[in-house]
């Protein structure tokens, strides 16, 4: 294992901010969700890397990542259900059609 930890962290940082860019820019609801998945994945990488390289004798990061994957799955399911409901009511998949909370 001779890859310095900084490389991994740089990778996950880049992935994180690509996800942020996608979230802020895209108008399609599903595309925004996909960007969120990118963010979550970058965070998972971070946890796994910290555990493996900095504290190899322990398992906290490993299990955190495992559970994070599970929770992401559940959250994606619920979010997609909401999007389907939104589509039924607003007949649009654009995020700027949901503007009831506008001033």
């Amino acid at each position, binding site marked *: 294992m001779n890859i310095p930890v900084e490389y991994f962290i740089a990778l996950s940082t880049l992935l994180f901010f690509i996800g942020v860019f996608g979230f*802020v*820019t895209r108008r399609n609801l599903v595309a*925004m969700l996909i960007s969120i998945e990118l963010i979550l994945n970058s965070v998972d990488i971070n946890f796994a890397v910290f555990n493996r390289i900095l504290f190899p004798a322990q398992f906290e990061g490993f299990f955190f990542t495992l559970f994070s994957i599970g929770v992401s799955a559940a959250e994606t399911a619920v979010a997609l259900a909401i999007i389907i409901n939104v589509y039924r009511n607003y007949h649009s998949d654009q*995020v*700027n059609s949901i*503007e009831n909370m*506008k*001033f």
Partner: protein
Amino acid sequence: MEYSYAFLILLLPFLSFLVLGLCGMKMKKPVAGLIGTIMLGSLFAMSLYTAYEYFFVIGRDAATGLYPTVTVFNFTWLKFTELLTFNIGFRLTPISVMMLIVITTVSFMVHIYSFGYMAERDDKYKFEEYEHGFQRFYAYLSLFTMSMLGLVVATNIFQMYMFWELVGVCSYLLIGFYYPKHSAVHASKKAFIVTRFADLFFLIGILFFSYYVGTFNYDMNANPELIGKLASVAAKYSWLLPSALFLMFIGGAGKSAMFPLHIWLPDAMEGPTPVSALIHAATMVVAGVYQVASLFPIWVQYAPNQLHWIAYIAAFTSFYAAAVACCQSDIKRGLAFSTISQIAYMLVALGVSCAIDNHEGGLGYMAGMFHLFTHAMFKALLFLCSGAIIVIIGSNFKQYMGGLHKYMPITNICFLIGCIAISGVWPLAGFFSKDEIVSACFEFSPFMGWFMTLVSGMTAFYMFRLYYVIFWGQSYYELDPENRKKPGEVPFVMWGPLVFLAIVSIFAGWIPFGHFVSATGQSMEIGLQHFEFTSVAWFSLLAAAIGIGLATWMYLPKNNPVPDMLAKKMPRLHKAALNRFYIDDAWQFFTHKIVFGCFSKPIAWFDRHVIDGTFNFMAWGAQEAGETIRPWQSGDVRSYAAWFLTGTVALTLILLCILS
């Protein structure tokens, strides 16, 4: 304590005001009237008893030979500084006891009379829409009585000022009693504003006086330390006391309708006639006279020249008012100008006094007070008679009257008695009081004496003109008997007070007034009452006779062409006199063009644009800020996330900078 009931004299009318004011509309009208009248009847009894106690039972103080000044109670209300306190008290001196009698007598008669005047009577008199508020009337009358009583028993000048203002308020309320009528509202505003404007000078005078002298008390008998204080102030600042006293007199001039502040009194006749009788004939308008009389010892000692100025102003006023009264066609306005003239007489009497010796110049004080007493009685009588006439005829104007001696006999006799009294004919009351005044004027200067004699002749002329025009001459009713209302006599509740006041007018002249009230406090004899007629007395009787004779010749026969011919020969003079020599218009010009135009408009502009503008601007700013911030809540999740992230990044950067 002898006068332990004295606080009731102030408390009872105030309670009556509260009860009638708050619960009056729930009572029946006669109940409200009875409460007011009974309360005032008890006040009348109390003041007669007080006079009896003061003058006869307790009598003169053995050591000084004067009637003692009794301070019944005097408690501190406000402390301005350690030395300067504002007290409310009750003080009895000869003139205040006399005023108690005057006020309660006339007020009592007015209360009884108002039962008839203010009540609804469908058969004889049709009610105008605005003539309601019987209970309110009695409430205001009670408040006025209390205020006037508080004024005359004041222990210090500030209490007098406070009740002075209260009296002004009552006058405003009562003049504007028929508030739906536009002219009444206008008149009440005018009265209040003019007197309030004069009271400003009164207040400045009080402030000067109290600041330098260090006290509000003005009675040297009750406060002996005042003598020393006044002497030291006069020695240090010779201008102070004359100016302070004269400023105070200006306030009194406003209330007592001296030229040029007299403009409110004729318009004040818009109020109901009992109000005119009580306030604008007998009591409130003599407040100025009473003020000068109370401060008289200070005036004579420290401001004798200013006292003479008062005499000059008052003399001119009495002549002016008499001239205007000769041409008035509204009987109440004629009586109002007569009142102005007679009050000026009282102030002339006070003004020509130049020493506190009873016979070397002190005569004026006693004469002025005596005239106040008798004038209150017969002027109230005249006003109440005119009220009876107005109620029967339905209008103030003389063109609807005439020949009423057949239909209103009692009113005829009473009015005649009042006219004889005011003209100064022996043996009625006016003769004694007026001639004492004229004698005092002759002592001062012969010109003043002849001037006042001339004015008394004019008084006789215009009063008898009024009398003949109302009661004799061509009857308005008889010109067209079918369409016009037949006049009848007023009911007992109205002519009872008339008869009472007429009897007082006949006999009041014989009261040995000099025993009770005089400049030095020592008893003085009134020569005329002992049938010692001086030449002055004969001259004034002659002047009265000429006046009466002229009036009789001009106005007694029906359709005498002489008055109209005179009016045609001097049209401008006649018109000017009718319009009161345009003084009102001059004041209107002054207020509207100068005060409103040059002072009020710029200030109003400043208030509206600068002061309101600041607050409007602040509100506008807040609203604009809100409108700017509002779009931040766009309902767009992406913006929220972006801002959230921005904030986090910024916070991290700040922390980095701080920590590193």
